[in-house]
């Protein structure tokens, strides 16, 4: 029997597989395909204080081994989430992590304060890396001061585990990671999408209503693995790795690079059962390699 349990701060995960925000809805969307109870955790759609309509259509374009999206944090707001969604998922035998976004620091604080009232929300993922909103989002995640200011405020407002999701659209991601670690983040998750653009040359128009968007999918994986490796060496808090994980092998790349847990994102769109397949693969891999505890694989890159 392989021990797949990992800890992110005080948050215990039965296995290292989480779902990435914005790719798994609130969870029930995938209940026809997998047993949600099997997940290490699920990170629900980016939630803001007020409802948001998101960006105009078209919001997505397929690109080589990936896709660019510009959804722009469409969601019904934290109160709707608490009233209508939370009751549907609070008893899932997994960890609910709410991805939180805001236009200003006060927004993040207020969303976290409202989530705090609900005992089965033991963790938040602070999104300072959304490339698709005009205010807040990535603006906080691209400077050490911005990242630190949001982390500091959320740390004060939320007693549970605080994950901070980092943007790859920076010169030195390790520096940002150190800044949020210094402000008390329990973990950093990376990477959010890579700012990108695609053009319809026949029409001479951008494919997205917002011109630019965020690239995800297998195309970004080598960049994400490199960044996870760099950040894991730079901080002492656990790192959560994501970016283009399509299968169990890909997930292990991140774990060997130093990730304590992984998030599966775009792959959910292509194979809605991918998460449990990744969990099973990791267990088989451990067995195959004579590993009885998945924690011994974290950062176990041989080089």
């Amino acid at each position, binding site marked *: 029997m392989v021990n797949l349990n990992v800890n992110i701060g005080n948050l215990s995960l039965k296995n290292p597989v989480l779902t990435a925000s914005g*790719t798994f*809805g609130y969870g029930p969307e995938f209940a026809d395909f997998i047993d949600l109870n099997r997940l290490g955790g699920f990170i629900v759609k980016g939630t803001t204080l007020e409802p948001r*309509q998101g960006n105009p*259509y078209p919001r*997505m374009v*397929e690109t080589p081994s990936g896709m660019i999206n510009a*959804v722009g944090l469409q969601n019904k707001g934290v109160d709707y989430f608490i009233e209508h969604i939370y009751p549907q998922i609070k008893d899932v035998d997994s960890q609910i992590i709410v991805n939180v976004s805001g236009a200003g620091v006060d927004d993040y604080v207020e969303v976290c304060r409202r989530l705090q009232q609900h005992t089965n929300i033991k963790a938040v993922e602070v999104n300072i890396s959304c490339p698709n909103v005009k205010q807040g989002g990535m603006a906080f995640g691209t400077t050490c001061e911005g990242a630190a200011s949001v982390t500091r405020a959320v740390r004060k407002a939320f007693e549970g585990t605080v994950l901070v999701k980092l943007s790859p659209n920076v010169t030195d991601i390790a520096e940002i990671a150190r800044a949020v670690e210094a402000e008390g983040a329990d973990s950093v998750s990376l990477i959010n999408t890579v700012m990108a653009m695609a053009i319809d040359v026949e029409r001479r128009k951008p494919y997205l209503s917002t011109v630019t968007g965020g690239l995800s999918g297998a195309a970004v994986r080598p960049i994400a693995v490199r960044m996870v490796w760099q950040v894991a060496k730079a901080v002492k808090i656990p790192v959560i790795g994501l970016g283009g994980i399509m299968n169990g092998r890909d997930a292990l790349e991140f774990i060997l690079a130093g990730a304590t847990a992984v998030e599966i994102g775009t792959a959910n*769109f*292509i194979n*809605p059962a991918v998460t449990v397949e990744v969990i099973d693969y990791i267990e088989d891999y451990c067995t195959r390699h004579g590993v009885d505890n998945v924690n011994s694989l974290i950062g176990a890159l041989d080089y």
Partner: protein
Amino acid sequence: MKRIIVFRIVSNTALGSNYTLMKLTPEDNAELPDTCPGQFVQIYVPDSKSTYLRRPISINFVDKKSNQLWLLIRNAGDGTAALMRMKAEERLNIIMPLGNGFTLPSDGERKLLLVGGGVGVAPLYALGHKLVDGGYRPVFLLGARSESDLLMLDEFKALGDVMICTDDGSVGHHGVVTTHEVMNGTFDRIYCCGPMPMMKAVANMVRNSGAECEVSLENTMACGVGACLCCVEPTVKGNVCVCTEGPVFNINQLTW
């Protein structure tokens, strides 16, 4: 309930150079899930390096007797071209059924018009069958660029009265569907699937006619299950996912 099903291709027949009619049956011979006309499937394309996401395709017909799923595929790019090249006995991984189908006529609604454009005729075949089974005799108005783009004409003719329009006048009425005289008739319910300009033109023409009118949208989508929020359409309720709230919408819900 939505399922991931591995299908065996029974046949994949060319309809001219730009379309195929693919018939599939579950590899394990399990009974196909119940579906409604207007629902769609998401196909994983196994043999196209440039295709990353699944391809959403309308259900053309489900033949309960032979346990077959029928799909009309148009060459719309690398992904669909790869699907068109597939041969009998090859396997396809498909998620189905997805979305909501057309609303069947309510009591007293007898005059039904089904307007299809190009490959948009696909779901109207399943719908036509369902209506005929319910004792209705639907009228089909089918438009296409040219004669070679008119699909499954014989099958439609077996279900009801068929009017034809072509943009180039190669067969039937010369012009777009909204210029066909049948559009001046009175109908209780109109179902429409085709290119966006066609659906908008039909919607605007019939909006105040007293007929209920439903259209089927095909906004670009990634997941097909309401998770990614990419395929949104502005509606009177705000942006909603075409994959889960549609793809069929009453035109009164839309902001056209």
